[in-house]
Structure formats: C-alpha cells, structure tokens
C-alpha cells in the first residue's frame, strides 16, 4: 500500500511538472525535430505494449482467454465509431458472459 502511495506521488509530481514546463519553457527548447517525433510516438508504443500485457499476460505466462475476445469486440465497436464508454462497457460484458458459459 505504501508503494502504491509512492507511485501516486511520483505520478502527481511528474505529470504536473510536464504540464507546467510546457506552458513555461521557451518553445525553441523543444523544437528539435527528433524530440517532437519521439514524443508523438510514445503514446502509440506504450499503449500497444499495455494492451498486449493487459490482454494476454497472466503473471509471467501468456494466456489466451475471454480478454482477447473482449478486445476484438472493442476493436469492432471502435471501427463502427461507438463512443468510448459504451464500447468499454460492451467489451467488459462480453468477457463476463463468455466466462459464464
């Protein structure tokens, strides 16, 4: 529990510092093309990794189960432009229903 609070504290300070620095630094500091491109790519790389671990990892094992089906449903709904919240709820319900079978 203490480590969770430590993690929260780091996140609070780190995330606020980034927002505040953005408003305060002269734009020229961050205009290096490599920096700009790297920051554009970070969310895609991290979210891709997060999805894979969230959906397929079980501790240190890789396991295919209802979570993968739920992700497939989420992808279909996103392609159909279903809004975020109904998409997440539907995806969760599919996983829950499949586990009841």
């Amino acid at each position: 529990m203490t480590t969770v609070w430590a993690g929260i504290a780091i996140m609070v300070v780190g995330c606020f510092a980034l927002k505040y620095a953005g408003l305060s630094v002269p734009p020229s500091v961050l205009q290096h093309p490599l920096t700009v491109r790297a920051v554009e790519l970070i969310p895609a790389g991290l979210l891709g990794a997060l999805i894979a671990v969230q959906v397929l990892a079980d501790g240190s094992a890789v396991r295919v189960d209802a979570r993968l089906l739920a992700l497939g449903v989420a992808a279909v709904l996103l392609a159909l432009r279903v809004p975020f919240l109904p998409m997440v709820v539907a995806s969760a319900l599919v996983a829950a229903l499949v586990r009841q079978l």
Partner: protein
Amino acid sequence: MTTDRSIIVDSLGVGLATGAYGVSFGAISTASGLSVVQTCVVSLLVFTGASQFAFVGIVASGGNPLTGALTAVLLGSRNLFYGVSMAPRLDLDPAARLATAHFVIDESTAMGVTRETTRQARLGFYWTGISIFVLWNLTTFAGALAGDAIGDPRTYGLDAAVGAAFLGLLWPRLATWRGRLVALIGAAVALGLVPFTAAGLPIVIGGAVAVLAGLLWRPVTP
C-alpha cells in the same frame, strides 16, 4: 465567425462526453486493488486519463507501482507539447500558468489551440478543461464505489475493460502506418518479455523499443 456562445456549448459537449468515462477509471482502479481514496486522489491530482489507466493497469497485473508511475509519466510527456502550443494562445502571467497547468490535457488543448483570438482560445480551453475536471472527479468517485462493491474484477469483465479502454485511447493514433507499426512493435516486444522480466518492465521496454523503431523507420516511397 465563431461566436463565444458556440465555443462554450461545444466545450461543454466535449466535457460531458469525456468526463463521463471517469466512471470506467474509478471502477477499474478499485477493482485493481487501489482504495477509493487513492483512486480519487489520482483523478484529482494526476488528471490525465491515459496515465491514470496505465498506472492502475500495471498495479492490477502485479507490477511495481513505481514502474507504473514511470509509465504514467512517460505517457504524460505529450502534455508538455500541448503546453508549448497553448502558451502563446493563452498568453498567461507566471501565477496564471501555475493555476492553469493542471488543465492541460488532450481535449482542452484540442478545443483551445485552433482559436484565432486569445479570448476564444481561453474560452475553449478553460470551459473544456474545467468541465472535464469536475465531471471526471465526480464519475471517478461513483465508479470507485461501484468497483469496490463488485469485488472480483473478473465477475463483470472489468479486467477485460482495461484492454478496451487502452484500445480506445490508442485508436486515433492508428490512423498512420507509423502509428500502427509502433503500436504493433510495442505489443510484440512487451509480450515476448512477459515470461522473462518482472511485471511492468515489458511495458516500459516494449514502448522504448517501439519508439526507437518508429524513429528509424523510413517508408519506401514508390
């Protein structure tokens, strides 16, 4: 000519739509093992959705919360650039910058950055940012209570909801081939590392390798 009124109405619309999904964060967070208080503190003080989901996702999968925090801060790095593009449009003194920074997120930037005058940029930015902040925290609290009452997250598929939430956040970035490639490499590297490293690390390493690959990749132009 865009009227002030239409900017406020549009901003409130975005605020309602985005703020509502705090309920999914709240539910997933307490189902992941955070307390209701911790969940609400995260929404109040971190207030940047993707980072919050990443943190609770990593804690839920047994990862070290410090690895979770590192991933969350890395995901928050885009807010740095949102701040850079908003600064000249908002035209703030140092004290106002301190009070404003918390509201620099995807949606407030999107609703403020395209305006032609400082007045309208501020209208779009603050109405969006503050309406999301208020609603996001109320819905987080409601969701946290619900997630706490559910108990085992698997019962209602809440563990699967995390993957869906991440995919929803990733979706707009899959519009380009480079985005797709980077996301795919991140996923593949992370998955390959799962059996060999401590929980949480595959995400940081997978993300880093993917960004590097994305920077090096040169599409062949026919």
